[in-house]
Every structure is written in C-alpha cells, then in structure tokens.
C-alpha cells in the first residue's frame, strides 16, 4: 500500500547536539499516528523538519508521492501539510475570525486589482471565506468568540483555535503539537471527540504529539516513541505499552523529574 506521508531517515543537529537522527515514519491515508517521548526528545523538532522551518540535513520527505525537501513552509502548507504550535503562535492582536480567515487565504485567488476595485468576484470570495471560517469555528464551539481578540481567549480556546486555523488551510495531513496541554480532563475528552470528528469529516490524516498517555493510547492507531532524538519503538498502543525500552525511557524521566 502507499503511504500519505513517507519520511526516510531525516536528521538535524544544532552545533554538536544531534536533535533528531535517522527519523523514519510512514503514515497511511486516514491514520491517526502518535509521536511520544520525554521532554527534549526532539518531537517538536520533527514537526519543524516536516514543515520546512528547519531544513533536514539528511534523508527525504514525501507527501502523497511529492518530495517536500527544500521547500519553504508556505509551499509545504500549500502541498497539504498543516500544523499547530506547542508554544501557541496565534495572531494575537487580530480577531478569532481573522486568524481563521488568514489561513483560508491560501486556497483562494487574491489579485490586487480585484481587492482594490472590490469586484463581484472579490465580494463573493470574501463572503465564502467568512462563511467557511465560521463553519470551522463552530465545530470547536468558537463561533461565539469570533470577534474577540485571539490573545484574550482562554488557554484551551487558544489551543482549539490553533487547530481550526490549521484546518482552514485544507490540509491532507495535520500535525498537532501537544493540543491538550493545559486542558482539564473534561476538555481533553471533548478534544478527542473533535479530533475524531474532523478526521472523518475532512478525510484527514493526523500526526499527534501528546503527553497524556491515556489520551494517546486511547485514540492513536500507531505510535512512534522518540528518546534523545532517536526512535526507540514503533507499533500499536498495546505493543508500545509493553515495550521495555519505552518503559525505561519514561521511568528514567520520572526519576529525573522528582
């Protein structure tokens, strides 16, 4: 079978630090894949490599058979790969609606002449973009907050808005970087449901970084475990839970934290 995302042995080091090494990952169409590992393992760096923020020093990345190597982040977004940020990066001064509309920009046609003359094409497109943004916002119950400034939102709402904004670019694959961080258990359950819903509704493939193990084990179909920039395990949740290397990596972390 062919995979939507096919990553072969990518790596990057910062100075002497090998942040990610020989990272290989294949995700089938429509799958929900988990990426876990202790803090500093290199998970966010993997996302940055996939989205073109960092240029991989080795390896190859293909999305739907098309190589993404050396492409700029906006081209990768256009190719159908979108993401959220662990350290929330919303457009804080702008309204919630504008945050989503900006991401809709990618799939429209925007000429300066049409914009300045306010042609009927332009007006129809703007109306359609607004409608689409509102529809997406309502999936995550953010419709009522559409005219709030993004930075005034609660932490959980900001995380949800990050997901909505990523969705608005019409991705094939969405990368979620700790979307449940800072949420309470009830919110996490809601979030898991919403992720399921958007997967079905938009025919999405998801790669998820998450620290809440019960959430990860619950919703992911396959899981990759990173430690010190290297993959230490890959498999179904059941296989991962019983893998001695994984247990060691996590226990090791518990010891250092306490």
């Amino acid at each position, binding site marked *: 079978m062919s995979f939507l995302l096919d990553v072969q042995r990518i790596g990057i080091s910062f100075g002497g630090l090998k942040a990610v090494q020989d990272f290989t990952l294949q995700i089938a169409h429509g799958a929900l894949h988990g990426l876990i590992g202790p803090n500093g393992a290199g998970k966010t760096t993997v996302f940055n490599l996939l*989205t073109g*923020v960092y240029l991989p020093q080795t390896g190859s990345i293909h999305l739907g058979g098309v190589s993404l190597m050396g492409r*700029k*982040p*906006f081209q990768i*977004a*256009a*190719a*159908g790969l*979108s*993401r959220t*940020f662990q350290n929330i*990066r*919303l*457009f*804080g*001064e*702008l*309204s919630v609606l*504008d945050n989503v*509309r*900006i*991401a*809709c*920009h*990618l*799939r*429209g*046609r*925007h000429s*300066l002449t049409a*914009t*300045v*003359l*306010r*042609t*009927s*094409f*332009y*007006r*129809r*497109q*703007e*109306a*359609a*973009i607004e*409608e*689409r943004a509102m529809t997406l916002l309502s999936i995550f119950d953010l419709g009522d907050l559409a*005219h*709030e*400034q993004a930075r*005034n939102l609660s932490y959980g709402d900001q995380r949800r808005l990050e997901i909505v*904004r*990523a969705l*608005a*670019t*019409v991705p094939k694959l969405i990368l979620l970087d700790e979307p449940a961080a800072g949420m309470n258990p009830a919110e996490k359950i809601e979030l898991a449901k919403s992720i399921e819903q958007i997967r079905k509704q938009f025919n999405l493939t998801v790669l998820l970084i998450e620290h809440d193990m019960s959430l990860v084990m619950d919703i992911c179909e396959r899981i990759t475990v990173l430690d010190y920039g290297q993959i230490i395990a890959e498999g179904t949740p059941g296989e991962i839970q019983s893998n001695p290397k994984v247990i060691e990596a996590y226990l090791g972390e518990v010891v250092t934290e306490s």
Partner: protein
Amino acid sequence: MQTLDYAIPGTRPTQPGWVTFVPPLAVLMLALLMHYCVPFLGAYAERIMTDMAIAMIAAMSLTIVNGFTGQFSIGHAAFMALGGYTAAWCSYYFCLRYWGQTAVVPGTLFGTHQLILLCCALIGGAVAAGAGWVVGLPSLRLRGDYLAIVTLGFGEILRVLFQQTNSQALSKPELANRPLFGSDPTNPGWVFPPGVGGSLGFTDIPKSTNLFLCYLLVGLTFLFAYRLKFSSLGRALLSIREDEIAAEAMGVNVTRLKVRAFMFAAFFAGIAGTLYAHQSGTTLRPIDSGFIRSFDIVIMVVLGGLGSISGALLAAVIITGVTAALLGLTDYGLLPYRMPVFALVLILMMIFRPKGLFGVHEIWDYLPQFGRKGAK
C-alpha cells in the same frame, strides 16, 4: 496546488454592489468640495491644507509597511523625493520643450497641467515602487531590523546623489543645444546626467498641484489602504506583523508579500512627493530625501497607531498643524522647539499609550455605535 472555488455564487450574503462604486464617487465629491471651499479661507489655509494632504498620503503609505506588515522603514522620504524628482524632471522638461516655459495658471480645477501632473505622478510612483523593489528584496528576505538600516542608508545615498546632479537648462534654446547624454559639466546632457538643480534645489517646476488633485489622491490612497487592510491580502500582511513563522506555516508567502507591501508604500510615497514637488512655494531639494523628513512621517505613523489608517490621517493633520503653528510664531523663536516637542510627545505616548493613539484599529472602532467587539 489544490484550490477551493470560493467564488461560486450561493445563498450567502455578499456585500452589496454599491460598495464598489460609491466610495470613489464620495472621494471625487470631497476633492471638488475642498477645491471650491478652501480658497474662501485664504491663501494661508490653502497652503496648510495642501501640506496636510501631502503628509496624509505619505503617512498612509508608510502605514502599509510599518503598520500592516510590521517592517520598520525609516527612509520613507527617500521614496517621496525620488518620486518627486522623477515626476518633476518629466513635467519640467516636457513643459520646457513644448511651451518654452513652465508657468501655470493658478486656480484651475483640471487643466492640461493637472493632466500632465497626474501622468507624472504615475511615473514618479512607478519609479519609486521600482526602487522599493530593489531596496526591499534583499533586506526583506531577512528577519529583523535590516530594513530600518537599509532604508536609512538609501535616503542618505539618494540625498548625496541629488546633490551631485547638474544645474538645469533654463530656456528653450539652451535645451535644444544640449545633447541627450553628456558628461561635460559645462554642457551636460539633458536626459542623462539629469539636470535637476544639484544642491541648490530643483527650481521652476510647473506649480500645478492644486487642492482638487491633492484631496483626490488623499481619497484614493485612503481607499487603497482601507480596502487592502480589510481584505484577504491585507489580513495576510497583518499576519506577518503578528507572527512571521505562523503566517508562513499557514501558507502566506511572507517574503513576496513584504516586498509587495513595501512597493505599494513606495508608490504612494512617490505620488506624495510629486504633489510636493509641484506645490507652489516649495523648492525640491536634496535634503527632502534625508532622515529629517523621514522622521516626520515615522512620527505620524507611530503617533496614529501602527496599522491605523485613520490614526495616521489624524496624526498627519496634527503634526502638520503644529508645525505650521510654530512656523507662524517664528517671531517668538519657537520653531527650533519643534523636534524637542515631538520627541516629548513620543516619549509621553510610549508611557501612556504605547500602541499609538488607536493601535491597529480605526477611529470609528472606538465609537460605541460602530464599535467592533474586541476593538479595545
């Protein structure tokens, strides 16, 4: 790339068609109103209102770069001067070759000279925009404050270049005797190197700027900036200002849009410079390209609120008004206090209203009946 057809007509409500045509008509009415009413207030008022119009266009154009896109340019006067010099060069030599003189009948609403001015403004704006591309492309690729340094340097370089230009050919026979291109300082070419007055300034430019053209162009610049800001294109610019990395991840071609915004700003600066060059009672001088003039425009944009078009307009009126008032009081020796006063205003603002008078919002967002939610 996959695109969605957003333009399919459907049941969703779109803005009514009149929004396309009514505002430009309103701009035309405003320009006519200004042209016929302001002269009743006297020549001094006319002069101040023209100064204000030029300042407003300059401030609104800088808002597109510094306000919307968040890239700090501090050499905006250079683009004004470049546009002004280019346009003045065109109109001056055109009038001289055609009529042998550059005198303009004052008080005309829209005569041949105003038509020439409008064409020259387009040329001046285009040349300024081209320069914006050359200056912007290398410096806007990089993140950080490179643009500020490069634009500052550009203004100073341009100032020195203008100082090195040749004096002007002042009569028709003299002009006819000159070669098109020439390096001989006693008989320089009239196309290149251009005779635009050197350090003494460019004199005898046809004084065809009038209130009608000024406020027509103020209105059109406002429409451009306003329609840009509240469009998909403008929101993409705002996203760059908010978070470049997130903007790029959401599919915004950051470098291209930054350069474009910079070129729009340079274009309108060139137009403002054209109006300035053709304004009666002014001499276009190399110093008009320098930092001091740029600083005035930056003050207007920062005072009005980075990203607020109406804020920039208001600040342009205030700064021009205060300057004129201090000029009027020269007898009391107050003019030297201009810069200290503005510096003080800026310091106070940084303390009490760090985002300028209106932040990224427009004045009407603060009125209760129009207020958008979240405008505060």
